[in-house]
């Protein structure tokens, strides 16, 4: 079970930051993503790309933490987008209406292009 524990890496560019995760986006996983985003916000970052290509499973608690991050990003008048989602995770985000506030791109390159 431990192999599913979420790990992440963050990369800060001039205009945006990319957070790449690996593993289960559950409660602790979501908290790790939130912490990384909030630290980047403290450094002035407003635009986020979340690359979930190595995260194949998610749960509703993890998603509710993502909604908290989206709320904070909106307060900052920034933006957040996802890339590398499985079809099912993308479908779930659409059903929930997350796409009203965020964009979904297939690849990180496409997300970066849209932000540049």
């Amino acid at each position, binding site marked *: *079970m431990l192999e*599913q524990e979420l790990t992440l890496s963050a990369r800060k560019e001039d205009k945006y930051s990319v957070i790449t995760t690996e593993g*289960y986006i*559950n409660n602790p996983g979501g908290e790790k993503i939130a912490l990384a985003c909030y630290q980047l916000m403290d450094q002035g970052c407003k635009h986020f790309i979340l690359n979930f290509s190595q995260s*194949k*499973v*998610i*749960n*509703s*608690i993890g*998603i*509710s*933490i993502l*909604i*908290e991050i*989206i*709320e904070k990003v*909106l307060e900052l008048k920034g933006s957040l987008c996802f890339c590398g989602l*499985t*079809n*099912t*995770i993308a*479908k*779930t985000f659409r*059903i*929930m*209406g*997350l796409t*009203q*506030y965020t964009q979904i791109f297939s690849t990180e390159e496409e997300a970066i292009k849209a932000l540049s």
Partner: protein
Amino acid sequence: MEDEVTLTIPMHHDMELEVTRIAASVAEAMRLDKDKIDEIKLALIEACLNAIEHSKSEEKKVHIKFKMIGDRLEIIIKDYGVGFDPSKIKEPKIEEKIKSPSKRGWGLKIMRSLMDSVVINSHKGGTKIVMTKRR
């Protein structure tokens, strides 16, 4: 032909992932495609998490049964907890959740959206969810 796989899990952290592994094997054996298997996995995670988080079951177990009925996979998730009234659960709206201090309340909606059918049978003695997916 009808085959069954049954399993019981303790209400521990991340046990829901073990259930999805078995679900994937069963669904692969039935030749469901990858996206359908992923949908089953997410729906099943939500059903198990609800039992773990909300049922207050004294035996602290979730019972899962996979029934392979022709081209249809039926999954039954059962707990012997306090139960709830699904008709009293409000449909979550993202516009409200984004401003509200509580962002939660999505599990049932996710299950219903990802499976072909979801039937909830709940009373004071516990909750039984029957969900199905066709090939």
